[in-house]
């Protein structure tokens, strides 16, 4: 661990205008870029979702041909996963990690610039692919062979985009790991550092372990498409099921790449607004690690209908259920943190509590799906769609909203509008459930996912879901307005706007100085990064 005594990025002036962003190396600038990029992608993917819900408002074909509909579902998934959620967490990590652990910046500032600026071209490739002959990829975000080995050049563009985003996220993860392992200020030991740092560290390892596997498998698709290989071509001795095995070896850990940072964020916000330390800090660290390890052993629970031997089904079923144990530990710890706390309900807290409740709903439907016999019935139905939107929208997305509201004063130096924030929360909470809860019923009744048309008996629940989706989407403009308004007009924020906040970033003035901890402070730290004493630490 390093005592940082140099001031290599010290005194030069802050660059202005375009070059400040294009050549950005400051972790705060890059974090801001990541966050705005992911919000743009969130709106883009959201518009696609509304396209899907518009078509599904009524049975029959109203707006899109089935092919375009499939392109919309595919790109909605890809953009939300790789363009919105993952970069948003990386952006949060960029902004917050150096402040939380007392580092001057991320370890590799120039590489950090590259990891961000690879993303917009990749996103552009995905969006442009709608305009090429044959349209965008329409095999679903999982890009299953043999569909993906057959489609037009939209699939090639998608594969390139995945390569680029993969490289970006791997570089971002290397930066996060090196920063956390090598740049912590004296006193900030691993078993004391804040949960968000722990979650980011473990997530970064997951990304380094599985993004290359995704890159590998889509490369095989590419060579099958253009270079005469037969990895997934039955005629050439290959096997389409093999694609699923390799893809889900990436795919299940990916689920936790999108969930663990959310766990970290919530583990900051609940203690702050309950004005109590996080319950069971050490068990939180171990639970997060064991979730990450177990996530490598459960991939085939996505493949119960591929004709696996019963023994394999049982293994993957029990292994999957096992993950509910560490996840349950976390939920228990969060509830215990709230227990007898003196709780106040500011917007970040509302989103965090909404997260705990709704993520648990999604977790429970996940346990339901882990039962092989049940999954065979529900595979590819709307029940699955409901399940993963509970963990990704009410899980990952709600945690991100919570994080933006919670750290907005530190990032911008201004307070957001509490009134609009609360409106945004209650609006999102209600319409989220109106959108996605009926999908459980649709799935149980047998409605398959990824279809533009459906049997008449599914109409009313689909109408409810579509109305919910449009209202939910509209509500996100409240968030955008709140952020834009508060950036200019919000009340000036004190250094520590939340009474119960005790991690290192709240020791800095608001907004955080452009060059913070140029000299590392000497820290006395309690569990979950609580600062008991601090000496030194120089900012510019």
């Amino acid at each position, binding site marked *: 661990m390093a005592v940082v005594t140099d001031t290599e990025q010290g005194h030069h002036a802050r660059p202005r205008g375009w070059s400040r962003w294009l050549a950005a190396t400051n972790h705060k600038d890059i974090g801001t870029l990541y966050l705005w990029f992911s919000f743009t992608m969130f709106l883009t993917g959201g518009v696609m979702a509304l396209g899907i819900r518009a078509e599904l408002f009524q049975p029959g074909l109203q707006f899109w041909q089935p092919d375009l509909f499939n392109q919309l579902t595919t790109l909605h998934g890809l953009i939300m996963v790789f363009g919105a959620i993952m970069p948003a967490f990386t952006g949060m990590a960029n902004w917050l990690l150096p402040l939380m652990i007392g580092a001057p910046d991320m370890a590799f500032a120039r590489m950090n610039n590259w990891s961000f600026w690879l993303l917009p071209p990749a996103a552009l490739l995905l969006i442009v692919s709608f305009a090429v002959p044959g349209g965008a990829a329409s095999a679903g975000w999982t890009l299953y062979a043999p569909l993906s080995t057959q489609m037009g050049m939209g699939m090639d563009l998608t594969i390139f985009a995945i390569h680029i985003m993969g490289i970006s996220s791997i570089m971002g993860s290397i930066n996060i790991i090196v920063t956390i392992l090598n740049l912590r200020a004296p006193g900030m030991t691993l078993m004391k550092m804040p949960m968000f740092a722990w979650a980011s560290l473990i997530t970064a390892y997951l990304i380094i372990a599985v993004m290359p596997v995704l890159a590998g498998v889509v490369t*095989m698709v590419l060579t099958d498409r253009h270079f005469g290989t037969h990895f997934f071509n039955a005629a050439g001795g290959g096997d389409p099921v093999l694609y699923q095995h390799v893809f889900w070896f990436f795919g299940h850990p990916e689920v936790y790449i999108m969930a663990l940072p959310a766990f970290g964020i919530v583990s900051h916000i609940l203690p702050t607004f309950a004005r109590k330390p996080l319950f069971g800090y050490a068990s939180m660290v171990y639970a997060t690690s064991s979730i990450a390890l177990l996530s490598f052993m459960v991939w085939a629970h996505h493949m119960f209908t591929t004709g696996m031997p019963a023994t394999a089904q049982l293994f993957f079923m029990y292994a999957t259920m096992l993950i509910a144990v560490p996840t349950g530990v976390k939920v228990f710890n969060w509830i215990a943190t709230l227990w007898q706390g003196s709780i106040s309900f500011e917007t970040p807290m509302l989103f965090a509590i909404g997260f705990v409740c709704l993520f648990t709903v999604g977790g429970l439907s996940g346990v339901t799906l882990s039962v092989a016999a049940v999954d065979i019935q529900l595979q590819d139905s709307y029940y699955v769609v409901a399940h993963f939107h509970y963990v990704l929208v009410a899980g990952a997305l709600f945690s991100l909203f919570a994080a933006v509201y919670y750290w907005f004063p530190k990032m911008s130096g201004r307070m957001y509008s509490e009134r609009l924030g609360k409106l945004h929360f209650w609006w999102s909470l209600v319409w989220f459930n109106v959108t996605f809860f009926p999908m459980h019923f649709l799935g149980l009744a047998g409605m398959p996912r990824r279809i533009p048309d459906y049997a008449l008996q599914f109409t009313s629940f689909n109408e409810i879901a579509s109305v919910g989706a449009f209202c939910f989407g509209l509500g996100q403009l409240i968030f955008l307005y709140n952020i834009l308004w508060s950036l200019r007009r919000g009340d000036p924020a004190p250094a520590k706007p939340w009474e119960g906040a005790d991690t290192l970033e709240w020791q800095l003035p608001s907004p955080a100085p452009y060059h913070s901890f140029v000299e590392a402070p000497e820290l006395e730290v309690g569990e979950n990064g609580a600062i008991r004493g601090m000496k030194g630490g120089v900012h510019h």
Partner: protein
Amino acid sequence: MRADTRRSANLALLKKLALIALLMFGFAWGLIPIYRVICEVTGINQLQRADAVGKAARGAAAAEVLLTFDATVQAGLPWQVRPLTGQLRARPGEFVKVEYEIVNAGAREVVGQAIPRYLPAAAGEYVKKLDCFCFKQQAFAPGERRRFPVVFFVDPALPEAVREITLSYTVFDVPGKGA
């Protein structure tokens, strides 16, 4: 610690992590042979190999099974594939021989590979094939017409409840082969 020591510690860790990423990329490719070996050893996905006869062939006693034969061709290919026998009844354990006729109706040489499929799928492991044109790729000159035997028996261990089995072949083009 001074700036250059810190820098080199960071770079050393960067190299290790980049190596992990590269190894995992290699691992993805390594999964292909690994899965192949697993399928081989456990016999999970044994489509293109003759089954062992063993003792199973004897002990023909159970009630007859209705066998249906079928074939499809991957869309856009010039093959015509049809079974010469549509249906027959056979006792489990009894050897059955049927013939398929395959025609290359196109004007170019083609190489195809037939993949068997069973209905119900669970019956697949009880159909023991001794000879099949699906065991290897087949090359056809333009207009060529050939007949192929399929020799198999139904394992007497077939569950009582299954008394009808459909054996269907899909013929795929092998890309990069043929002219």
